[in-house]
């Protein structure tokens, strides 16, 4: 009985799996190894990659570890992707150094690599499709200054102090405030790990310590939603909130006016441009070293414009 169960299982697995393979052998195949999978941001990147795949009639797969600490799992995914002898590869490294041996292997096998979302510190990727996070955060600083009238106290709730995006968004904001708005003082920069609940608690602590606070910048979806929750739980009035990325909760906050506005990256564009660059590179065509996938500022007034609505995700 047990043997039969096992055989049944194997057969199911095989059937389940061999379907897509039959198609895949004919087509150009580009695996995308991402930093994550289940967050809405990554699903939006995947949607962009799928769009490019449909447009150019190629096969893609999209995989990433359960969370952004699982560096070794990402390496295993990269190894499995290379075993499939892909035409080209899209890769968003959690830790560039750890991936170097496999990237070298890809290079030896003549598989072009395109980095996405954040750069890979290596000369192997031919191109990087990413948001200019520093410029985007500087725009957030401008919007903040505009809303609070160019003077007062602001705070930053950032997602972390180690990742490239965390550092760039924090510094982009702080540097712009320092260079352009001498009458605005940044009273606190705290890190909530992008966790909504933690960011909520942080925000409440910041508000308690600084009752005269005029504005808070949340540097990613979880941070921004946490800031909104913290401000409403404290019942604080007149605090301008600027967020980053989108998602259902953040979009609702912008629409209702709780949040003044937010920066959105173009995750769909990141996915699309990565696949496109990978395809071009595999055909031996030249691709630019940096592909700026762009960013927008949105608020209640423009979030329904087709151009903006297309890059916001739920």
């Amino acid at each position, binding site marked *: 009985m047990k043997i039969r169960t*096992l055989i049944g*299982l194997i057969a199911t697995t095989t059937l389940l799996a061999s379907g897509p393979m039959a198609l895949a052998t004919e087509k150009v195949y580009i695996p995308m190894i991402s930093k994550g999978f289940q967050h809405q941001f990554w699903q939006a990147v995947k949607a962009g990659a799928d769009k490019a795949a449909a447009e150019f009639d190629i096969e893609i797969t999209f*995989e990433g570890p359960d969370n952004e600490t*699982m560096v070794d799992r990402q390496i295993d995914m990269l190894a499995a992707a290379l075993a*499939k002898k892909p035409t080209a590869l899209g890769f968003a490294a959690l830790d560039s150094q750890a991936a170097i041996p496999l990237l070298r292997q890809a290079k030896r096998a003549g598989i072009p690599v395109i980095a996405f979302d954040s750069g890979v510190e290596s000369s192997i990727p031919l191109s990087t499709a990413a948001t200019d996070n520093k410029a985007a955060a500087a725009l957030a600083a401008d919007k903040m200054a505009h809303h609070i009238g160019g003077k007062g106290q602001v705070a930053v709730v950032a997602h972390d102090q180690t990742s490239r995006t965390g550092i760039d968004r924090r510094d982009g904001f702080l540097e712009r405030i320092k260079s352009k708005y001498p009458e605005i003082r940044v009273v606190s920069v705290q890190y909530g790990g992008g966790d909504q609940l933690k960011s909520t608690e942080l925000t409440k602590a910041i508000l308690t310590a600084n009752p005269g606070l005029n504005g808070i910048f949340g540097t990613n979806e979880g941070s921004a939603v946490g800031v909104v929750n913290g401000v409403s739980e404290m019942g604080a009035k007149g605090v301008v909130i600027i967020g980053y990325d989108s998602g259902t909760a953040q979009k609702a906050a912008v629409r209702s006016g709780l949040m003044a506005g937010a920066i959105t990256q173009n995750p769909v564009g990141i996915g699309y441009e990565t696949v496109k660059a990978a395809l071009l590179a595999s055909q031996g065509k030249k691709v630019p070293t940096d592909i700026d996938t762009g960013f927008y500022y949105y608020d209640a007034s423009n979030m329904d414009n087709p151009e903006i609505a297309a890059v916001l995700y739920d």
Partner: protein
Amino acid sequence: MNTLAQVKKPSLLSHIVATGTHQRLLAFASLILLLFGFSIASPNFMQTSNMIAILQATSVNGVLAVAATLVIITGGIDLSVGTLMTFCAVMAGVVLTYAGMPLPFGVLASICMGALAGLVSGSLVAKMKIPPFIATLGMMLILKGLSLVISDTRPIYFNDTEGFDLISRGSLIGEIFPSLPIPNGVLILFLVAIIASYILNRTLLGRYTFALGSNEEAVRLSGVNVDAWKMGIYALAGGICGIAGLLIASRLNSAQPALGLGYELEAIAAVVIGGTSLAGGRGTIMGTIIGALIMAVLINGLRVLSVAQEWQTIVTGVIIILAVYTDMMRKRKK
């Protein structure tokens, strides 16, 4: 107190051999079937490089699973194996990168800190009578926090330690047989498995491990110092986690302080697929290794077949339940 060991020995041993063989055969057959199935489904699966990738993916989880097996056989559970691994990797980083000491000190630091942390878990369980689930849950969080504090939440790189990357990535076998570049990490996994298997089946510590899991009270009543033996097992498991810490740090050429949560569950999954009973008193290292291989083959195979990631996790879950179910059915028939 010797009488217990003598009286128990024949019945226990025959018990282990009988159940062990069956379960191992069943698990081994499923492994072969999986390999066979994936080979037919995809021409890219059965290549040397992919087989090596699978073995390499097994190495860390396999070593952790061996550690978890020892504790589970005593009727306990160790939820701290994943973060303890990270903690040991960070300690190796402190010794090698921060203090600039030579490689052997780093290896020693990692294994000793692992054993020490294991000893602490063991004392919490044995002396303070805290249930193993709670004691190791606490240790899991403490060790995670310590790793972050000690490393200042940043990865520690081993660029200055000559030969550190060879622990996991180098290949002794490959130097002898160039066509078979099996990484040292895999070699270390099998060495750890053989040694743990020897300890379990051929030493007094091993015999008491099974005895504790079967009937702790009987062992205690026969005058055995149960607490000391239990702490010994947790310390041994901790030391093995130290080896896993070295393997993962070497593979990533860095100690990643945030990593580790979730690894304990995968290790425990490998243990139960391999036929070790969570109730204690029964289990084999060989079974655990096969369990870890089954998980690695399954995940790799599904990836090579481009099965969507959502489905990969579902299939893994189904396999865990099926493996334990078939084991239970077999036992019930007896």
